């Protein structure tokens, strides 16, 4: 048994009673990384020396008031698009291969105040653009449940490292499903908070109106504790919301009596696999047996989500990624004749194909003569998609459906066909467009032994209800206790 099979609250108790030391926890991480990392390839950078010396310092504080915080001494992995001062941050891109940030992201500052220990930085699709982590400029991460399949993306390293037991929790980021889809593919719990719930300061921007940082964990309770630590208003992020952060753990009552669940027919219809459908119907039965009720509803504009998303996210990305020009930081081409040449060659040599595709799509959608037809049209479609959710949430507490249409696909299967890859995000994208929170929790296994995810979507800033439902479901099932054999 791994120490990380314990919940966060149990690990805290073990530390408190001095049955386990912080050094033991950090050891557990690096030993597991030594044992399985050549198969999983979840990490881009390890911070072992710092982690170990920090653990030693913290062990001296064990049993004192300073060790009372719930996250004290907890090892964590960080997606490599969240800047960490002095610790290489690459966004899995060659253009940032040797980039050492000079400040910490707000979420990292918050984790430091809570005394967590950063184990290392996790692989991802380059600049978070992708659904399989195959777009990493450095390595392909494998799904611990079947090494020939993808871990999902773009937070593939964050999800795979937790599923493989290399770290007990991690942070990811979610622009169109990048936390929830990998969580579904790896049998972990992943939350995309409400837009504005968690500061984006220090998250390297992909699509600023959609990006959110969130936790990936092995159970719902841990997830709630992690969100508690990172949520809240930040003066450094003008899009972070001035909305009180409730006590999320207090929501984990196990009680879903009278809960009204909406199940969009579009989430169980065309394009959604039979196994995903059946696992959701079975999950609804579980919640029904606990006193919740469900009805079929419609989110009529769902099918426009993917188009809307790719136009908006790519447009925003084309602007955000303009900063990578080889001047102030990052890779610079050695072959430039003049400044224009320097920009063009640096970017051509530094970015991978998917990033180039999206920058060009976005530049096109924003360019003179096409702006109204593509960008503005997509913004209007976004309004309709957002209204779909508002209409349903006027009558229901949560929306439930599958996280993904199918379980994890094979490495290499979709990489040459962008549109097929994009279709994978059909059930997660509308949630980002509407800005509402969503979680993926394990809800079954495919006939081939791959995890399936249940997506629970809530109202703006109502993560508490999502957690309550997810936790009640988890209490009644044992999917989250299964571990991959590595």
């Amino acid at each position, binding site marked *: 048994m791994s120490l990380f099979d314990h919940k966060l609250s149990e690990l805290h108790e073990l530390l408190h009673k001095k049955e386990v030391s912080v050094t033991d926890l950090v050891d557990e991480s690096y030993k597991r990384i030594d044992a399985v990392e050549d198969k999983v390839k979840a990490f881009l950078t390890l911070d072992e020396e710092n982690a170990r010396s920090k653990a030693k310092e913290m062990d001296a504080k064990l049993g004192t008031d300073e060790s009372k915080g719930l996250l004290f001494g907890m090892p964590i992995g960080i997606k490599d698009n969240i800047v960490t001062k002095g610790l290489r941050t690459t966004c899995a891109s060659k253009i940032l291969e040797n980039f050492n940030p*000079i400040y910490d992201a707000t979420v990292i500052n918050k984790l430091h105040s809570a005394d967590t220990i950063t184990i290392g930085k996790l692989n991802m699709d380059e600049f978070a653009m992708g659904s399989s982590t195959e777009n990493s400029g450095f390595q392909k991460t494998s799904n611990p449940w079947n090494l020939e399949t993808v871990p999902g993306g773009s937070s593939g390293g964050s999800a795979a490292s937790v599923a493989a037991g290399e770290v007990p929790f991690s942070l990811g980021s979610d622009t169109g499903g990048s936390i929830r889809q990998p969580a579904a593919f790896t049998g972990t719990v992943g939350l995309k908070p409400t837009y504005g719930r968690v500061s984006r300061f220090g998250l390297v921007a992909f699509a600023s109106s959609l990006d959110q940082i969130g936790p990936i964990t092995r159970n719902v309770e841990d997830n709630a504790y992690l969100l508690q630590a990172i949520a809240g208003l930040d003066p450094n992020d003008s899009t972070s919301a001035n909305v009180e952060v409730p006590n999320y753990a207090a929501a984990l009552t196990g009680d879903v009596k009278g809960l009204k669940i909406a199940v969009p027919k579009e989430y169980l219809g065309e394009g959604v696999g039979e196994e995903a459908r059946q696992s959701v119907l079975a999950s609804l039965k579980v919640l029904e047996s606990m006193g919740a009720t469900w009805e079929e509803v419609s989110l009529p504009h769902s099918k426009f989500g993917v188009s809307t998303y790719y136009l908006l996210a790519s447009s925003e990305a084309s602007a955000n990624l303009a900063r990578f020009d*080889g001047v102030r*930081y990052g890779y610079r081409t050695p072959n430039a004749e*003049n400044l224009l040449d320097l920009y063009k060659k640096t970017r*051509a040599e530094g970015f991978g194909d998917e990033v180039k595709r999206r920058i060009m799509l976005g530049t096109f959608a924003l360019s003179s003569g096409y702006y109204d037809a593509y960008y503005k049209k997509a913004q209007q479609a976004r309004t309709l998609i957002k209204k779909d959710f508002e209409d349903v949430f006027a009558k229901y507490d949560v929306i439930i459906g599958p996280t993904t249409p199918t379980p994890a696909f094979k490495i290499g299967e979709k990489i040459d066909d962008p549109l097929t890859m994009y279709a994978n995000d059909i059930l997660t994208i509308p949630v980002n467009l509407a800005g509402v929170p969503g979680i993926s929790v394990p809800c079954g296994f495919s006939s081939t032994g791959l995890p399936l995810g249940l997506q629970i979507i809530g109202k703006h800033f109502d993560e508490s209800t999502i957690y309550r439902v997810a936790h009640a479901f988890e209490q009644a099932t044992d999917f989250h206790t299964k571990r991959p054999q590595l």
Partner: protein
Amino acid sequence: MTRISEEQVKHVAHLARLAITEDEAKKFTTQLDAIIGFAEQLNELDTSNVEATSHVLDMKNVMREDKPVEGLPREEVLKNAPDKQDGQVRVPSILD
């Protein structure tokens, strides 16, 4: 009907400051054409009286107090610069 021509792809690549080869221009033309073609399904939607959403939360013009704060130290800021001299970032000549 093609939605984006090879010439347009080259123009867009120039606007985005991306050097592309002839082969890449061909490949990206095919791929971008397919993606844009797919995105044109949005034309099925009547959006004539629909407001555009650029931000999902009801907030605008978030201001901080107009008070000077210390910036990052120059040495720190220059630490990641690929080429620097005398406390400045150095780039190749701008004019031919």
